[in-house]
């Protein structure tokens, strides 16, 4: 295959040149080229006769061949200048000979090249083979190397561990040596002590053997003293021995008894505690049972069983009293079961809480722990003074209730808070009373005054009526028709007079009123004119109460009427004055 490729390479090299020169007859060139490329033998095989030259293109062929030959470096085959269409046979033959020589040379070079190519390819093969071999060898050696490294490492480790072991062993050996040393020193010490004692014994023995005068041991007591407990000492008999034995066993037994009692008490306590724990666990678990009833069917089943078991248990408890091994085992088993359940429950809660906490950290709704605590603190602070206040109140109340005191002080104490106010009220009441009295008096005075006034008025009216009657009876022939103007003027004059003398008149009028019989002559002319106009005079109403009614006689003369009018006016003014003075008083 390498050869064919080499040939293809060669054709590739040659073919462009051929194609360039024979562009017109490519198709005729290609078959030989293909043949050439396909065959691996030299070029002198049979060709398919090419139809390069035909009768029509002889000249072109000639020129073309000339060109080709000249390009190869050979003398031309045919020259234009010769003019004959016939070729120079010699030149053609020479050319052909040259071409054949070239061809041979080419073949030879091709052979050489082929040989060289073969050689080189075989070299290449050889080299490739050696290279693969070397690569394999390299691989093998690498593997071998890693293996060796691994072994070395393991050996290192082993060495280290062995060194550790060695160290440990050395330490232990050291320790043991220390122990041995200390024991040895202790033994030596003891030995020395014993030896000393031994030598002392020997000396003493020698001394005793030598020194015959033995001192006897003796006791010298002035007088026997009594026993500590005062009892007589007993002879050593079997009875006493038995008694001693008995006493010894009694002590032991009493000790065991106390211990057993203590243990019973402890046991009872512990059992009580276990029962309590169990009850509490059951209550906790039963609380959560309604919540989790949907999810935990198997659990509910087990719990129902346990409840039955507990009911059975409670009843048995009364009867057996938890003293049998069976009951004890049952109790412990049930507690274990409950505890396991409680533990799983708590674990579940824990996981839930942690999840919830992780989720809650981001929500704003949940009150953070700090604010909650702050709130609590604040509330506590608020509560504290209130509590103190309540406490002081209570204390005072207590004090009050509990303090013993006599009647008046109690009464005093009971009313003590209102004392000041009461005093104030009392004073105010007094002042108000005074004022009230004053007002009463004044009112009485006023009413009296009013009554008096009315009486006086009545009297005065009576007097006036009487006086007018008198006047009328006295003045009637003259005064009727003549002097209405005069009466008017008189009345005007009188009015002015009355006005001027109004102030001085009242006393006199009063005086004359009190005198019921007859008015003074000075008053008469003033009042006589007003009688006629009595009925026409304006009823001056000075005050609401003092309406002056003018009772009239229609037959009165004009002057009299004017006078009467004046008089009335005067009276009114007088009333005003009286009232004013009265009220001023």
């Amino acid at each position, binding site marked *: 295959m390498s050869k064919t490729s080499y040939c293809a390479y060669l054709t590739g090299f040659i073919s462009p040149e051929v194609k360039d020169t024979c562009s017109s007859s490519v198709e005729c060139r290609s078959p030989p080229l293909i043949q050439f490329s396909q065959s691996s033998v030299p070029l002198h095989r049979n060709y398919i006769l090419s139809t390069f030259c035909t009768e029509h293109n002889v000249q072109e062929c000639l020129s073309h061949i000339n060109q080709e030959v000249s390009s190869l470096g050979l003398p031309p085959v045919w020259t234009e200048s010769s003019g004959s269409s016939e070729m120079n046979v010699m030149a053609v033959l020479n050319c052909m000979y040259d071409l054949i020589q070239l061809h041979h040379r080419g073949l030879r070079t091709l052979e050489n090249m082929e040989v060289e190519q073969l050689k080189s390819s075989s070299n290449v093969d050889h080299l490739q083979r050696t290279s693969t071999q070397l690569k394999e060898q390299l691989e093998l050696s690498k593997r071998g190397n890693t293996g060796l490294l691994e072994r070395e490492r393991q050996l290192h480790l082993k060495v280290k561990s062995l060194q550790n072991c060695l160290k440990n062993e050395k330490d232990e050996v050291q320790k*043991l040596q*220390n*122990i041995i*040393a*200390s*024991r040895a*020193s*202790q*033994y*030596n*010490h*003891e030995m020395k002590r014993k030896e000393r*004692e031994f030598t*002392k*014994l020997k000396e*003493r023995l020698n001394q*005793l053997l030598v020194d015959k005068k*033995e*001192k*006897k*041991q*003796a*006791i*010298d*007591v*002035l*007088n*026997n*003293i*009594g*026993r*500590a*407990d005062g009892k007589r*000492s*007993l002879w*050593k008999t079997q009875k*006493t*021995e038995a008694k*001693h*034995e008995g*006493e*010894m*066993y009694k*002590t*032991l037994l009493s*000790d065991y008894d106390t*211990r057993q009692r203590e243990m019973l008490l402890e046991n009872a306590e512990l059992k009580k505690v276990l029962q309590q724990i169990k009850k509490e666990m059951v209550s906790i678990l039963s609380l959560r049972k309604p919540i989790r009833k949907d999810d935990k069917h198997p659990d509910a089943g087990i719990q129902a069983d346990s409840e039955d078991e507990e009911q059975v248990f409670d009843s048995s408890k009364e009867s057996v009293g938890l003293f049998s091994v069976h009951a004890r085992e049952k109790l412990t088993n049930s507690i274990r079961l409950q505890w396991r359940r409680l533990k799983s429950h708590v674990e579940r809660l824990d996981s839930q809480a942690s999840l919830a906490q992780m989720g809650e950290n981001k929500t704003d709704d949940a009150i953070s722990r700090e604010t909650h605590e702050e709130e609590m603190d604040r509330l506590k602070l608020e509560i504290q003074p209130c509590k103190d206040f309540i406490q002081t109140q209570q204390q005072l109340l207590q004090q009050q209730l509990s303090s013993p005191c006599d009647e008046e002080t109690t009464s005093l104490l009971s009313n003590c808070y209102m004392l000041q106010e009461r005093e104030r009220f009392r004073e105010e009441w007094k002042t108000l009373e005074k004022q009230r009295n004053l007002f009463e008096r004044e009112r009485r005075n006023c009413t009296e005054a009013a009554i008096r006034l009315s009486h006086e008025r009545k009297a005065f009216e009576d007097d006036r009526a009487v006086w007018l009657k008198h006047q009328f009876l006295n003045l009637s022939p003259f005064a009727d028709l003549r002097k209405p103007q005069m009466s008017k003027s008189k009345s005007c004059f009188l009015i002015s007079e009355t006005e001027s003398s109004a102030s001085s008149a009242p006393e006199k009028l009063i005086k004359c009123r009190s005198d019921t019989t007859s008015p003074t002559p000075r008053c008469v002319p003033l009042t006589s004119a007003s009688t006629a106009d009595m009925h026409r005079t304006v009823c001056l109403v000075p005050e609401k109460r003092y309406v002056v009614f003018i009772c009239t006689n229609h037959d009165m003369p004009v002057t009299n009427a004017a006078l009467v009018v004046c008089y009335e006016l005067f009276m009114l003014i007088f009333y005003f004055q009286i009232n004013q003075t009265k009220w001023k008083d």
Partner: protein
Amino acid sequence: MNFSEVFKQSNQLCKVSPDGKYLATCVQYRLVVRDVSTLQILQLYTCLDQISHMDWSSDSLFILCAMYKRGLVQVWSLEQPDWHCKIDEGSIGLVSSRWSPDGRHILNTTEFHLRVTVWSLCTKAVSYIKYPKACQKGIDFSRDGCYMALAERRDCKDYVSVFVCDDWHLLRHFETETQDLAGLEWSPNGCVLAVWDSCLEYKVLLYSLDGRLLSAYSAYEWSLGVKSVTWSPNSQFLAIGSYDEKVRILNHITWKKITQFEHPSSINNTKAVVYKEVEKRTAVGSDDLSLHITIGTALYNTRSKYEICPSPVQIPVVKPDPDRANPKIGVSSLAFSSDSRYLATKNGGFQVQSLNWHRSGDSLMLLGKEQLCLCYMDTDQEDK
């Protein structure tokens, strides 16, 4: 706090009578009895030799004075000063002497622990107990005074004998599973006897009054073991202090460890309060910030106060010489408060001679070589 004048004494022999009325001190060969309230000398007795040991009888009527070198024990009476009693052990020698709980018998341990002689002051009778063991605590009386437990050793084996103190009748005699019995102690209720092995083996055995083995406890092997053991006053707990600087507490029902306390050199516990004594010396300029150990100066010249140290607190630890026997490490003394709520422990080489709780249970007294420390605790009353 008021202090009286200093009274002379020798051999640290100074004891208050059990009824609290008298104070007896020994000065060389004299025994001085004072009234506690007035500190006036009531009686003065003279012994034949320097007094090595002095003890009150349980009814506060008699005092025994033992002179070990001479092998003599003299007993004095408070009621009758003329009364005298002398016990001569003779050539056999005397190593220790003690009262019996009824106050009428004296138990003398002879030299080399050959035997225990029980002398009766009522009848002048003598009893002998053979092969007592020479150990840290070989004899213990029960709290009610009825029984006495005695450790014995015969043929390289440990035994415990229980005697009835009334007439010294041997009630029980049993072998213990110890290698080398170091001590025994009755529980306060008198029903259980705790027996522990020497420090070469960690083993605590519990026997009931009638000699049955109730339980055995061993925390670890090989290292040095039990250093000190104490019962709680209500007999419910047994505290074991060991050389590994830990206290382990056993409960009386199962006799198993319910808790253990450690004594770390650095205290990090937020609940712990550490008081450090800061002394102000008048003579020396620098402060000596040590917890209990002081270099002696005149007792009344130093003024000290306690400061609260901020945690973590580093306690100054002196590493003992490991080659020496009976190293000064480990929990050496334990004391329960009277209501069994608190436990005071002393670990390490601190110079604390004794820990004593007050009967009310809220104050603790530490007696050092040269110092006395009273600790008051502010305990809240909790509901029972």
